[in-house]
């Protein structure tokens, strides 16, 4: 051992030139892998952006027109008008409702799995969730179409009204005429994004050191208090990331939503009524239009708008997160 020590001492601390290279190689490789993301995204976003502005550049549609409410792309039946407002609001409406339904369920499930579930329950639920991800959206759409839509229609076909003696009807939601609706779309979506939100939040909860749990419990707090006041705040950045991932997934989902939402380009009013999303419109019309015609250009503009909405909400959530972390 003494010998080894002596030998070591002679070794200079300066890195041999070849070694430096070797040490840096992995860094370059992983750097390239990460940066490839930027390449892909630039390509894709550039493409969408380029296609998305063709409606204005090539077809001469005024930019303001996309914020109008009338969608009339078909030149054969009157003057065209490319109003995307119903789709934009529809996308926001369906996504928001889906998140509203899915977030408590998913975060609850993540908490259940990480804090409450006995080993056997976890062993069942976790693989089960991963199967959810592998079920094609067509299948979800089909289940929605054959089970959910008739169910909603049969169960809630009458108007839902809250009446007060003097004030009269204070709240009224029309019943489902058909079952194809905002709500149906949101329900299907909320199931589809449930595994994403759950698994990412689950990881966030698991990453919290055990010492924090024991520390809190030893102070005589209940498990719920520990969850509420220690675990949720500590995992919040992770949970918000999960919600963002779920949100973008929901906003971008097409086939399943389109099958159950009714696809009527009107402004969203009641959850029982059909509306249409950007993705639904893209899915319905993309295959039937040809490349370069104004109609398809308008569909590309929809993709661009969708992208802008998603990116904006990603940025918003990030800002909120940053603000919180600073506290």
């Amino acid at each position: 051992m003494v010998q080894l020590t002596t030998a070591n001492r002679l070794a200079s601390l300066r890195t041999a030139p070849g070694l430096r290279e070797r040490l840096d190689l992995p860094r370059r490789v992983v750097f390239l892998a990460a940066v490839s993301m930027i390449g892909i995204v630039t390509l894709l976003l550039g493409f969408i952006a380029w296609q998305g502005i063709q409606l204005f550049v090539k077809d001469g549609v005024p930019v303001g027109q996309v914020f109008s409410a009338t969608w009339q792309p078909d030149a054969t039946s009157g003057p065209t008008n490319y109003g995307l407002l119903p789709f934009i609001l529809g996308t926001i409406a369906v996504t928001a409702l889906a998140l509203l339904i899915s977030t408590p369920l998913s975060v609850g499930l993540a908490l259940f799995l990480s804090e409450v579930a006995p080993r056997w329950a976890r062993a069942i639920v976790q693989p089960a969730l991963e199967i959810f991800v592998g079920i094609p959206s067509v299948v979800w759409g089909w289940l929605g179409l054959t089970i959910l839509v008739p169910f909603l229609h049969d169960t809630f076909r009458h108007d839902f009204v809250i009446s007060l003696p003097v004030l009269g009807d204070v709240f009224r939601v029309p019943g489902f005429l058909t079952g194809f609706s905002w709500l149906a779309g949101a329900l299907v979506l909320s199931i589809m994004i449930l595994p994403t939100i759950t698994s990412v939040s689950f990881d966030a909860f698991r990453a919290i050191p055990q010492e924090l749990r024991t520390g809190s419990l030893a102070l005589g707090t209940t498990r719920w208090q520990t969850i509420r006041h220690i675990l949720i705040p500590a995992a919040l950045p992770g949970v918000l990331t999960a919600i963002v991932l779920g949100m973008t997934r929901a906003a971008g989902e097409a086939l399943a939503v389109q099958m159950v939402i009714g696809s009527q380009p009107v402004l969203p009013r009641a959850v029982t009524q059909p509306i249409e999303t950007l993705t639904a419109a893209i899915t319905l019309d993309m295959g039937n239009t040809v490349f370069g015609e104004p109609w398809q250009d308008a569909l590309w503009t929809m993709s661009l708008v969708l992208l802008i909405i998603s990116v904006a909400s990603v940025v918003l959530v990030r800002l909120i997160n940053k603000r919180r972390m600073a506290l």
Partner: protein
Amino acid sequence: MHATATYPEPVLRRVKVPAPIALLGAAEAPLDESTTKIATEHVSIRYGRFVAVRDVSLQIRERSIMALIGPSGSGKSTFLRCFNRMNDLIPGAKVEGQVCLDGENVTDPDVSVVELRRRVGMVFQRPNPFPMSIYENVAYGPRRRGMNGRRQLDELVETSLKRAALWDEVKDDLRRKSGLALSGGQQQRLCIARVLATEPEVILMDEPASALDPVSTLRIEELMRELRKAYTIVIVTHNMQQAARVSDVTAFFTMAEDRAGYLVEVGPTGRIFTRPTERLTEDYISGRFG
């Protein structure tokens, strides 16, 4: 005391010598006059099939300090955790026998562990502050019990931090600085303050001072003596001097082959350190002081 005799003498002559608190404490409250706070009867604790604590019966008097000593792996921490049922959280850990707090068996499944842990606070070997401000760390327990008044909390936080000898160092960024930004020693004192703020009856400490510097350690030891007037304290320590200084009663656990987790001897601290009845205890203590 070979080593001590050789070099610290000159210093000791020159500095102010505090009162020998260990024996003073023991004298203050004669053991027989107080009542039993905690009693264990035939407690054995297993991890799966491994027995970490074997058939331990002992009593801890109210308003006294009990020190658990013994070699590493002898089950001290495991035993300590059965007083507030923290072993419940360890998968595979199983406690047999009775652990009574004020005569009530806390191992009873009907017992509210939350209530139990409020009454039996715990300070861990590794400091584990929450990732919140210092203030929120200390206010955490009281808040969970429903204390919300700003004034009341402020006061409680200040008192607790002062008692844990941390106030002076942190008072300026109480609400801005995270508990995690403190040094190891400061973190541990914060954890002690956090427990004090919940005003328990019993405080369990698992090597609370192993990360503290001597000055803070002394302060904490003083505080323990102070707390002893109202609370019951059980401390696991490797520092035999600490055990000698602060505790009234010392229990010695062993790890000798096939007897791991066995309670060898328990008795007044003075006697354990001067006239242990068991050979094992003597060997252990002398190894320390030799």
